[in-house]
């Protein structure tokens, strides 16, 4: 019988790790700056998922506070990047 803990450890977390690696390829490759911004945003979003799974596995609910902060930073970073990329064109 497979336990839920083993399932989280050997299926869910590896899938999320592979996802982060695939997004990193786009972060290095991306032809435009906006591609890299979207890749960075996606990496932080997947990071929220990884933190959630890790807090389930280690039974530490405090880690969810970190997830809140990361969600805030991802949104602020994307909006700030978009604002300055749009400004940069004008000059």
């Amino acid at each position, binding site marked *: 019988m497979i336990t*839920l803990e083993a*399932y*989280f450890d050997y*299926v*869910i977390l590896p*899938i*999320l790790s*592979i*996802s*982060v690696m*695939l*997004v990193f*390829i*786009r972060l290095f490759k991306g*032809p*435009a*700056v*906006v*591609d890299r*911004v*979207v*890749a960075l*945003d*996606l990496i932080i*979003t*997947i990071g*929220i*998922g990884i933190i*959630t*799974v890790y*807090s*389930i596995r280690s039974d530490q*609910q405090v880690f*969810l*506070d970190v*997830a*809140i902060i990361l*969600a*805030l930073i*991802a*949104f602020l970073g*994307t*909006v700030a*990047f*978009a*604002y300055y*990329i*749009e400004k*940069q*064109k004008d000059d």
Partner: protein
Amino acid sequence: MIDIVLALLSTAGALSILFASIGILRMPDFYLRLSVTVKASTLGVGLLLICAAIMFPDVSVTTKAIAIVFFLIITAPIGAHMIGRAAYFTGTPLWKGTIADELAGMYDEETHTLESEEEERDKGDAPNIAETEEETK
């Protein structure tokens, strides 16, 4: 019973995050990548957070998880809209197979405001569609 529900929710969440990352790698165009990424990753992280909300027998964790999901659902479209708008202004080319670009020539280059009159359409310039596949890859 609750274990099966948790396993199903977490599998759906992890798979949709995996599909989002495959999409951002394989899609031919920035705008297609954006449209794939935002929705699928929000769904995946939301399902994982619902999983955590069910798992912990504590009201504060449930509140926190619902707050994160709510915040993600509110902010992800705003961020995607802002970055897509910035990409359109900076001249990111569209995919080679793009059929229609309704926005071509409708934006004022100086003030970045959107014109909506029909006669503005005629003097607008051609849509910024890429010549080759390699240009947007």
